[in-house]
């Protein structure tokens, strides 16, 4: 409990509080009057309204499309499942600039929809919503699917033997068991889409802005820290309220469940209905995720004289201007190193927090549970600027240190670790732990023997998330990455920022490599899981 609290206080609460104070206290006088003034401006109200409803709509749409996917991944056994699970997670690491490009190629001028039906969605809210589904599909599939796969299907079958209809059996047996993880997934998608920045900027044109883009505008463009601080506070309380409501809903629902190995629950689809569901999910994944990514891959091969490997070859040779001091291929190593460190930090902090949260149930602890989610909903600009004015004294003058990158990335990774592990940890029957204790095991040993085998799967899923988040992270990385060690995402952004065919093509090629690196890393994590867990049950 102590470690996560200190980590959270030092690298999140302190920077955010400091920057808000800086904005709200001008010459020693608090500017609370600015709240009413700012919040009565019509354009700010428009921003608040749009932020809320697009996040709600995005969350609803994502659940609608991804829950069948979660079911298919949890209950069906099919070839290439691991690969497909890795593929749906790839969007998570993609630099948003690239994703914007990919979506414009599908829904924009001359895009697929335009050519087929003369339909253009760029600059509309639909483009934003669809891109949000693309990004967050994996959140639902992984958090809900992870638990679903471990639920014993025999409980539902027992209910049906006792005379319950299929629907009733699902509603009374499976749904209550799944509810906490569905709620957790919905919450994360909501927080992500409410603080969406680049998607809104690229696909929404100049028409739409969210609280997040507005905070950026006030901080970076206008340098109006007071307005930014007011908006940060609004964001803070709104996110806090959402978290409180969520905690209330979920608390009563979490019960001990009988968990089994996922290998036991999955089988090949049977019957027309199941095959139709399976095909539907595959189709939606193909349209929503594979197709946009495919556009980028296609462009990475499309040179001015037909398809070829020219851009990939160029990645190995130094840049004609000598701008990138290293061959661009080296950026893969840099990205992986940062991601590994960030994942380890997130696992340690998140794991300890999750363990502490299962053991204690006081009000304070529950509050802390919600607090750990805050970084997902609070503006990255606020945190970044806060870092600058707080972490400026030794031993915490981290502004120029590489560790700042994994620390900032871990801040986003920790909520995933906690959220993925908590439902599983809480589902562990307390009597198992008690039995272990009665038999003389120390708490550590009891955890290792009872909890760990059951949560190992969740732990690896969480690790995959934390890893993907840090691999694709851009904001903190661009700030700190040295010129001689850029990461993949930083290199892509720099290439796109310059004219010239070679730059554009290399950006596409690097993005393709980023996809492959992500997919392969996640596949390796999956392999780790099956090897270790086989024979455990």
């Amino acid at each position, binding site marked *: *409990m*102590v*470690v996560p609290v200190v*980590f959270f206080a030092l690298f999140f609460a302190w920077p955010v509080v400091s920057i808000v104070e800086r904005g709200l206290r001008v010459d020693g006088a608090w500017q609370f009057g600015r709240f009413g003034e700012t919040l009565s401006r019509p354009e700010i109200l428009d921003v608040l309204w749009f932020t809320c409803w697009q996040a709600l709509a995005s969350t609803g749409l994502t659940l609608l499309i991804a829950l069948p996917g979660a079911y298919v991944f949890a209950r069906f056994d099919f070839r290439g499942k691991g690969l497909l699970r890795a593929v749906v997670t790839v969007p998570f690491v993609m630099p948003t*600039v690239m994703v*914007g*490009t990919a979506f414009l*190629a599908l829904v924009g*001028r*001359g895009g697929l929809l335009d050519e087929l039906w003369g339909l253009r969605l760029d600059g509309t809210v639909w483009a934003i919503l669809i891109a949000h589904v693309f990004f967050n599909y994996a959140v639902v599939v992984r958090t809900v699917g992870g638990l679903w796969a471990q639920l014993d299907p025999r409980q539902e079958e027992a209910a049906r033997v006792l005379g319950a209809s299929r629907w009733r059996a699902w509603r009374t047996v499976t749904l209550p068991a799944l509810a906490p993880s569905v709620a957790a997934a919905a919450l994360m998608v909501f927080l992500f889409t409410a603080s969406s920045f680049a998607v809104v*900027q*690229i696909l929404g*044109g*100049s028409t739409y802005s969210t609280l997040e883009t507005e905070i950026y505008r006030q*901080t*970076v*463009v*206008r*340098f109006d820290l007071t307005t930014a601080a007011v908006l940060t506070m609004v964001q803070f309380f709104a996110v806090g309220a959402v978290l409180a409501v969520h905690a209330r809903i979920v608390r009563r629902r979490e019960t001990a469940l009988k968990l089994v190995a996922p290998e036991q629950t999955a089988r090949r689809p049977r019957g027309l209905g199941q095959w139709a569901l399976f095909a539907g999910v595959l189709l939606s994944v193909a349209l929503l995720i594979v197709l946009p990514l495919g556009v980028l891959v296609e462009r990475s091969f*499309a*040179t*001015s004289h037909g398809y070829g490997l*020219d851009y990939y070859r*160029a990645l190995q040779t130094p840049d004609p*201007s*000598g*701008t990138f*001091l290293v061959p661009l291929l080296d950026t893969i190593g840099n990205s992986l190193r940062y991601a590994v460190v960030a994942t380890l930090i997130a696992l*340690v*902090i998140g794991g300890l927090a999750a*363990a502490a949260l299962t053991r204690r149930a006081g009000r304070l602890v529950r509050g802390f549970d919600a607090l750990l989610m805050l970084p997902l909903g609070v503006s990255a600009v606020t945190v970044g*600027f806060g870092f*600058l*004015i707080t972490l*400026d004294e*030794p*031993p915490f003058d*981290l502004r*120029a*240190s*590489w*560790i700042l990158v994994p*620390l900032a990335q871990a801040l986003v990774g920790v909520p995933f670790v906690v959220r993925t592990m908590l439902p599983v940890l809480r589902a562990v029957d307390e009597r198992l732990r008690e039995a272990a204790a009665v038999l003389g095991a*120390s*708490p550590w040993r009891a*955890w290792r023997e009872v909890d760990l085998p059951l949560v190992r799967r969740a732990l690896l899923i969480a690790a995959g998330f934390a890893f993907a988040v840090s691999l694709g992270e851009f904001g903190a990385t*661009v*700030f700190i990455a*040295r*010129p001689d060690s850029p990461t993949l995402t930083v290199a892509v952004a*720099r290439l*796109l*920022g*310059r*004219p*010239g*065919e*070679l*730059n*554009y093509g290399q950006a596409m090629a690097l993005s393709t490599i980023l996809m492959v690196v992500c997919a392969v890393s996640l596949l390796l994590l999956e392999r780790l899981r099956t090897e270790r867990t086989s024979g455990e049950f």
Partner: protein
Amino acid sequence: MSIKKAAAAALVAALGVTTLAACGTEDVRDAAGKSGAPVPKTVTLVSHDSFNASKEVLAEFTKQTGFTVKVLKSGDAGEAVNKEILTKGSPQGDVFFGVDNTLLSRALDNGIFVPYAAKGLDRVPAEYQLDKEERVTPIDSGDICVNYDKKYFADKKLAPPVTFDDLAKPAYKNLLVVENPERSSPGLGFLLGTAAKFGDDGWQGYWSKLKANGVKTVDSWELAYNQEFSGSAGGKQAKGDRPLVVSYASSPPVEVLYGEPQPKVAPTGVSTGTCFRQTEFAGLLNGAKNPEGGKALIDFLISKRFQEDMPLQMFVNPVAKDAALPELFTRHGVVVEKPETMAPEKIAEKRDPWIQQWSSLVLK
């Protein structure tokens, strides 16, 4: 081991890592301190994301002065300047490079720089030296201009536009894409260019004409250039249909440099009567830990060696008279005879109200 002990151990480890990391950045300084030499050997340059310099040139600096340059990139230009204002007195580094004339007043009014007259400043024309108190030193300049797709205009047998007035003519209807001045610096430069050309009360009328002539607005240079512009590689793939875009006078040479294979002539051209001049400055930061190294670095930034390296690194023009332009620029670039300019104080005063007026005029 109990959970508490494990937690305590992990905390110690976590703090250990961060402290070590912090020390890692300090140890050069500490080592210098212990050996009795109080001068730190590292000089830290804070800049925006577009900063680049070749390795040999930075090594040359180390050879000349004994200082090693550490570069810290701090976001886009506006973000980087704001961060320096926030950390005033406890700066992230010793020298800041990359504040341009559109942001200069904000930086100077907040007092983030201390005066330093760089050695060799006499080689820089007076027109670039915008701060009389010498708190900042001009390093490079560049022009924001409309670029055109040569092939489009050749195919249509239409002369490409040259001036601001041309852009509002019916022959060029629905051809131009610009960036939102609130979110993009070329967009802001273009707006300031029109204000300089048509006057404080004349530019609104000009933009109404542009709007009637079908100007399109997007949020960033990347979107305008790589998606909408028909003359760039990205734009061709994305089936961009705008042959006119707000970009830089140096964009055509860069298209040549990164052509695959390199073309003999640039595929794009510059409308030389639509340009706004941007000048970038460097200054010694208030509270710098290594002011000596910082001063040496500023001297170096306007030295012939660095100035001649700059064009191919950041695609800008040197300001020092003795610095020669690379062949790529002399052959494929253009000379902008009379770019529009504006005093930093005026930009600081008008920037926000103008952007607001522009938004309600063009976006709504």
